[in-house]
């Protein structure tokens, strides 16, 4: 039985209100105590002085198992979107996906809600849960048929699984690649109004109310969308939502000059919506910050804007960009760890992302002020498609422990 004690670090306990001094005691792959603990004499000590010790990040909704990028970013677990070359719609595929990262990275697959993600027939959600799926997802699109969506929610609720949905009305979004506004008009890009998001959220909240199901809107990016989520939470519905740093720090004018690295789904929004997103993180409406990691090489991105695939490589910049929220005073360090670790763990139902005794010993040592410059040419990810190229950021992960073992 191995005992480890991490000492001298500042602890970023998601349940706490401030960074606190203290130790973390680990036995095998579990945390057994944190804070003011007396160290057993047989424990090996690890010095974390000058560093912040936090739970490993749990990235709720990524498109690739890209371990080097995740490790660079301090991500120790990720929920894999069902949108793979073969959609994750049966148990064997789920089982295969869960094994892809072990032992030093854990993938929690999201089961496709419908066969082939087509939005028509229910997939074998129960079988996939037994094979390791931790949530149900609609993938990159919403489910257009409200009847199907209601049955997905209701069936998943019976299994205790959260449904992770894409908040964009497909009819309005159509073939749009940008949000309606000055930039889309100037560039002559197919566009859809930002209300496509709120319309989808409004419907799905009503279905969640009717079915009592837990629903998570993976990326909410508009003021109107946050207003709906805020109201649903006040009502006590099991509604959560996430966002990725791109929508917090970029607006739709980032696609000027047809920059395909800024082609995302949903598309980047107006500056007003960007500010509303920051406010929604600050007031607690947002539960999760995800990288939405989707590495795409030149064959997908070096194309005319509308033909390029959406998505950005976000794993490496997730923590550093999110730390801007702490530096700018929108959230505390501890709250940030709730958004990056504790809440994703809660939504997936995994005993990680927290310092509670018996939680998985997935820890990261953060040098919170270490400066570096994002460089799309030198990324650990499978591809360097980041809209934050050449942006100076602060915050680096110095060490990662996965299941009680340092990488």
């Amino acid at each position, binding site marked *: 039985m191995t005992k480890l004690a991490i000492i001298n670090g500042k602890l970023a306990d998601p349940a706490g209100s401030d960074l606190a001094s203290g130790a973390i005691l680990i036995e095998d792959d579990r945390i057994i105590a944190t804070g003011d603990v007396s160290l057993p004499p047989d424990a090996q000590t690890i010095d974390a002085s000058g560093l912040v010790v936090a739970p490993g990040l749990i990235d709720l909704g990524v498109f690739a198992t890209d371990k080097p990028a995740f490790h660079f970013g301090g991500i120790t677990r990720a929920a894999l979107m069902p949108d793979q070359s073969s959609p994750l719609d049966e148990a064997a595929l789920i089982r295969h996906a869960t094994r892809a990262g072990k032992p030093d990275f854990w993938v929690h697959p999201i089961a496709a809600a419908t066969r082939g993600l087509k939005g028509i027939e229910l997939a074998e959600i129960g079988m996939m849960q037994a094979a390791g799926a931790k949530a149900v997802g609609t993938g990159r699109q919403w489910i257009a048929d409200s009847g199907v969506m209601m049955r997905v929610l209701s069936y998943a609720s019976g299994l205790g699984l959260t449904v992770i949905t894409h908040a964009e009305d497909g009819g309005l979004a159509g073939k749009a690649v940008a949000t309606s506004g000055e930039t889309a*008009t*100037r*560039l*002559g890009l197919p566009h859809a109004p930002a209300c496509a998001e709120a319309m989808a959220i409004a419907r799905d909240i009503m279905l969640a109310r009717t079915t009592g199901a837990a629903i998570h809107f993976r990326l909410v990016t508009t003021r109107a969308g946050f207003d709906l989520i805020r109201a649903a939470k006040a009502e006590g519905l099991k509604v959560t939502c996430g966002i990725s740093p791109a929508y917090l720090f970029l607006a739709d004018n980032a696609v000027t*000059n*047809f920059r395909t690295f800024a082609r995302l789904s949903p598309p980047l929004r107006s500056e007003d919506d960007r500010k509303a997103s920051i406010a929604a993180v600050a007031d607690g409406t947002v539960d999760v910050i995800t990288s939405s990691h989707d590495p795409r090489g030149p064959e997908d991105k*070096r194309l*005319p804007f509308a033909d390029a695939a959406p998505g950005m490589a976000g794993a490496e910049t997730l923590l550093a960009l999110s730390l801007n929220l702490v530096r700018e005073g929108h959230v505390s360090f501890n709250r940030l760890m709730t958004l990056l670790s504790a809440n994703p763990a809660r939504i997936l139902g995994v005993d990680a992302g927290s310092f509670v005794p018996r939680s998985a010993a997935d820890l990261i040592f953060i040098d919170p002020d270490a400066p570096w410059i994002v460089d799309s040419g030198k990324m650990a990810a499978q591809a360097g498609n980041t809209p934050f190229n050449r942006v100076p950021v602060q915050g680096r992960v110095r060490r990662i422990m996965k299941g009680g073992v340092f990488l």
Partner: protein
Amino acid sequence: MPDITVPSASPDLAGRALFPHRHLLSIADLKPWEIRFLLDEAEHWAKSNRGGARKHDDRLKGMTQINAFFENSTRTLLSFEIAGKRLGADVVNMAAATSSVKKGETLIDTAMTLNAMAADVIVIRHASSGAVALIADKVDCPVLNAGDGWHQHPTQALLDALTIRRRKGGFEGLIVAICGDVLHSRVARSNMLCLAALGAQVRAVAPPTLMPPEVEMLGATPFHRMDEGLEGADVVMMLRLQNERMDGAFIPSPREYHMLYGLTPERLAIAKRDALVMHPGPMNRGVEISSVVADHPDRSAITEQVEMGVAIRMACLDVLTRGARGVEGWA
């Protein structure tokens, strides 16, 4: 016709400073005086093109001009081809239907291929917004955008501006109504920017389903009713309505569109008495424009637009290749 001073298009006085651009991709890249410079240059070619049978000028002799058209075109392709040939260039046309694009070659690979063939100037049309800029970034020679998606068609805006200037004498205070499918129109986007930069009052007239959001940012005032948009207009510029948008997708039917937005003689009467009628072609007679208006000998400038197209394209080809030709002040 108003008297316009025609500066010499001979090797230039102020050189590159007059037009410090490698490519011609978007009107948005151009300053008003750069637009005027191109119009002045084109004026020279307009005169020489009318000057009898011998129109040839050999300044581009030995240079290769590739017209890479990834989207079908008749008049623009022809116009660029004639412009290049009148300047003495070896003009080669690459049509998408017969090219390796159909075999799955990527746009970047096609660009590299064209580049490797040592073209001196490449003219590109593509169905995707931004595609021409993408290619321009990868080649060593000047690139002219002959239309990319809904984004830009700069030579069309320049030829329209030249036509207006010849007929109206200038732009200051001129009311120009751009009418029709503004949403999907690169011609409209280029013209709004160009005419606003030159000092005209630009109106965008379209049904709400065919009006881009925040069109004001491109310098145009939006109108949803044709009659209001035409009130007091000096120039009425009609846009082509694509067939695939006609049946229920954006408007209910061609005949309803004609009723509400078609340019008929009655409707043209709302504009100024001497209002000029323009259309970038090809026209849908009886849909966006009635034949009586299109063929009106005094009011319609539609064939003159085509004529000015050659002059503008000659000017652009000349100006953009001056650096490579070692013209004094441009190298």
